[in-house]
């Protein structure tokens, strides 16, 4: 079983491809997308994606817009912003909009991995809490 189900979104195709290989080797289930629009479509089709690694600067729909849409339709999915140094401000803005954290390109694979793990943990914790709450609701109804 994979550590987490992750979607990698970046317009740099070689980057995504290499990253997919490296992260898959580290027991992550990777779904890749090369634009904001594609990411949203894939997110709708694919079930159980837990973390989205989202590049900030992309042609067409950029990272911030994509983040807003993701948070709208999939509020529980955690998003890690991926940024070049020049767009740190945008990444911080993204965090204000609900992103989990941001990473700088080129990033160390270990750092990325640990961030993804944290994000997954957070997401799972959220989900657990929601399930717990539902169970409570159901049990309380029985009583």
């Amino acid at each position, binding site marked *: 079983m994979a550590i987490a189900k992750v979607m990698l979104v970046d317009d740099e195709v*070689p*980057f995504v491809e*290499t990253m997919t290989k*490296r992260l898959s080797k580290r027991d992550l289930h990777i779904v890749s997308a090369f634009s904001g629009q594609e990411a949203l479509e894939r997110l709708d089709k694919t079930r159980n994606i837990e973390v989205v690694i989202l590049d900030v600067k992309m042609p067409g729909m950029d990272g911030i817009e994509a983040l807003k849409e993701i948070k709208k339709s999939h509020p529980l999915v955690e998003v890690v912003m991926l940024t*070049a140094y*020049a767009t740190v401000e945008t990444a*911080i803005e993204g965090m204000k909009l609900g992103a989990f954290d941001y990473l700088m*390109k*080129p990033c*160390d694979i270990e750092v990325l991995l640990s961030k993804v793990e944290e994000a997954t943990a957070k997401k799972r914790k959220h989900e657990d809490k929601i399930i717990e709450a539902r169970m409570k609701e159901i049990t309380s109804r029985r009583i």
Partner: protein
Amino acid sequence: MNMERTGFKTNSYYRSLTRNMFLIITIVSVIPLILVSSIILYQFHTSYQEKVHAHLEELVQKHKQNIDSFLKDKLSGIQFLGKTFNFEELNDEAFLQDILKTLQEEYDPVFVDLGVINTYGLQVAYAGPFKLGMALYGTADWFQNAMKTEYFISDVFLGLRGLPHFIIAVRESWMGEFWILRATIDFVAFNNLVENIRIGETGFAFILNKEGNFQTKPLVDIVSSKAPYMDFLNTEPGSKDKIHVVEKTDQSGNENIYVSAFLKDGDWLLVYQQRVTDAFSNFNNALIVTLAIILLGGLGIVTTAYILSRQMVSRIAGSDKEKEMMNEQIVESGKLASVGELAAGIAHEINNPVAIMVEEAGWIEDLLEEEEFQEGQNLDEFSRALNQIRAQGRRCKEITQKLLSFARKTDSRVQDIQANDLIEEVVALSAQRAKYSNVTVNTDLQGNLPTLRMSQTELQQVLLNLINNALDAMEKSGGVINISSKLEGESIVIEVADNGPGIPEANLFRIFDPFFTTKPVGKGTGLGLSICYGIINKLGGKLEVKSALGQGSTFYVRIPLPEKKEGEDEGPPAGSDSH
């Protein structure tokens, strides 16, 4: 384009500006001065002339009356004698002598002699100093005239005695025949009446008869010709009581003022003559003083206008120069900003390929860990090369990051900053330059400094400026720069000390002035320290300097800590990526 225009301001531009200002100031101040002065002078001249004329008129009028009354007086005396005594009584020379004596006692001794002349012109009796008894006057003009009227006053003539005199004759009748009582008036006494009229240096009076002969002794040297006076005699026959004032130029070119009045029922003309320059000497003196004042004032105005316009234009030239430098500075900073943007773009674009390269290297490394490669001969070489690629990739990243942090100069957002981090960043930036200048940069930073609230780039700019200045100062000799930070009361003090040549005391007060620079033209704008001063001042801090020649300079940057507010704790600091 503004730059170009100011750049073309040559010397001739300033020269024509100076000339225009000079001319305008001069014209605007001198013309009213001249207008006012000439109007006042003209008015004054007119009224002064009227005054002088009136005065002379009065003078001549008075003397005319004097002379007329003198003549009338003498005439009435003789008339009285003629009426009182008859021909026979007066025919007695002894009696006549008595009368003459009485006359001379009663009147001034103006009566020289008395004579009684019968109808044929024979002087039958005579009393006086001359031996004129039995003189025959039958053919004399005065006798002819005297026989026609009751009385007659003759013109001045030499007569039998050869001395100038004139005669008062009274006609009386005795036994059906006319006889004449004649008295001679002393010329000197009469002449005094007129000669006493003397005003100024050239003013004098004289009397002319109808033929234009002098009846008094004029100042011969002045009156050279009778011609001008003939005009008065001829042109004014009707108005006997009027006094005429005329200004005329005589033959020798002198302008004279003539005042004339008729005497003796129009027989004689009293003329007063004076040079105009003499009559108006007071006015002329005032005129000279006024002209001198106008001249001096004009000179003063011209001098002031000259100096003022020179000063103004040199000011303008100075401010033009400053503006030009400012423009250059703006262009420079504009260039810097665009270079910064360019750098940011490039850094961003480079970051992506570098990231891919590093990832690819990582992927190869991942693959190498698989068993089948573990026995490969060149495994060590592979991993060394991959490590090298990773290391160089990281180096690229660091360079682009530095480039970006420097390029983002326009960022003036106020944020919490750690002074020490910033100092280290700036020192790292200047490390390369310091190395070339043979300068060692030491830092002595106090740990755990509270954060400051200000623009990061502004503090960066201040520190970079101070370090660059120190490096400039020690460029040739090399040296040491010590940078320290510490908490002092409620502010953080950053010291930038060098052991360079130091700043001369004379310059010490001016180094924060805008545009003050000791660097050669084109090298420094002289704005660096003044901008630093402005930045620190704006924060309520202080930028101070201590320096001595040969002992280096120390700049103190004192920045007050932000006032503490509850719960003001911002999220993770910007550089939270771990490396």
